[in-house]
């Protein structure tokens, strides 16, 4: 059962993402911002990280950079799920080491399709 770390500061968005992922048989751990996610990643292994960009304390790009420095997360797929849609932000995501960039609002079926494609 693949384990997914879902990171978003919006409780509504966490609820929707968790509902979608759990419905497809994934196990989900939620984090309320990048810092919370990074702390959870210290003690647990995840098969995929799905993160928002704009969050307090540590944003999605910051989280991605920090995770990529961690030996456990060198190759873990990290997907950004955000309202940010500019090419500049996408380039920054790529440079930070993200696996993919999804623009909200998301279509649940499409999200699951992408996750299936990138998860090991």
């Amino acid at each position, binding site marked *: 059962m693949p384990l997914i770390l879902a990171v978003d*500061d*919006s*409780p*509504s*968005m966490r*609820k*929707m993402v968790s509902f979608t992922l759990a419905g497809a048989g994934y196990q989900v751990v939620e984090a309320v911002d990048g810092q919370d996610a990074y702390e959870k990643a210290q003690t647990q292994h995840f098969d995929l990280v799905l993160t928002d960009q*704009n969050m*307090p304390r540590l944003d999605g790009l910051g989280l991605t950079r920090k995770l990529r420095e961690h030996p456990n997360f060198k190759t873990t797929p990290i997907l950004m799920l955000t*309202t940010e*849609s500019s090419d500049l932000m*996408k380039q920054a*995501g*790529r440079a930070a080491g*993200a*696996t*993919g*960039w*999804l*623009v*909200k*609002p*998301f*279509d*649940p079926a*499409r999200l699951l399709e*992408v996750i299936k*494609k*990138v998860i090991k």
Partner: protein
Amino acid sequence: MKTSELPVRAAPLRPLTSGGPKVLAGGRISRVDELRAQPRKPGEASFFYADHHFQYDAVKVLPGEYFVSGDDVLIMTVLGSCIAACVWDGKARVGGMNHFMLPEGEDGSGRYGSYAMELLLNEMIKMGARRETMQAKIFGGGAVMAGFTTMNVGERNTKFVLDYLSTERIPVVSQDVLDIHPRKVCFFPVTGKALVKRLAHAHPEALVVEERKGNAAALAKSTAGGSVDLF
């Protein structure tokens, strides 16, 4: 009388050309031209005008749009069954308004409404607001057309926004929702002051058509919502 004896006027009483900056009451200079010249993101309201009644620089939020500001401006919209959420952080002195309608026959996840809410909150957070100190006032959700009531669009919208804000733990400090009236809402983002005027049923059909035209689903498409890039 010789021309040299004519009284000399030191300066014209008002600019002779109409192209100069507009002056609001109290001698404040209107910044409407400046606001118009600034680049805007997709979905951000861009209809700026000088409001005569309030003597304020104002922006009109059309269906599907939002506007966030830390300036002392007036944010205005007109609602039928749509909802406008006015959210502000009095500590950061940043606030904003959206204007959304849940599309009918969708998958029921409320993602278009929640997308409109998220856009608003995200832009506020980017400008320094914090979720913990935000407050909300909500307006709209009226059953403006006879026969429209059976579909309960206004009711569904109202329930959605109340649920959403409760999940986000943002207190709703005031609301004027449901009933049968179209509403005009004026919101001052820095102070959180909101004024609502219930409008007469002049042309409710026109309002409904306008709301349909610009819903958040169309906005999502225009902002590349749902797009996927794999690196």
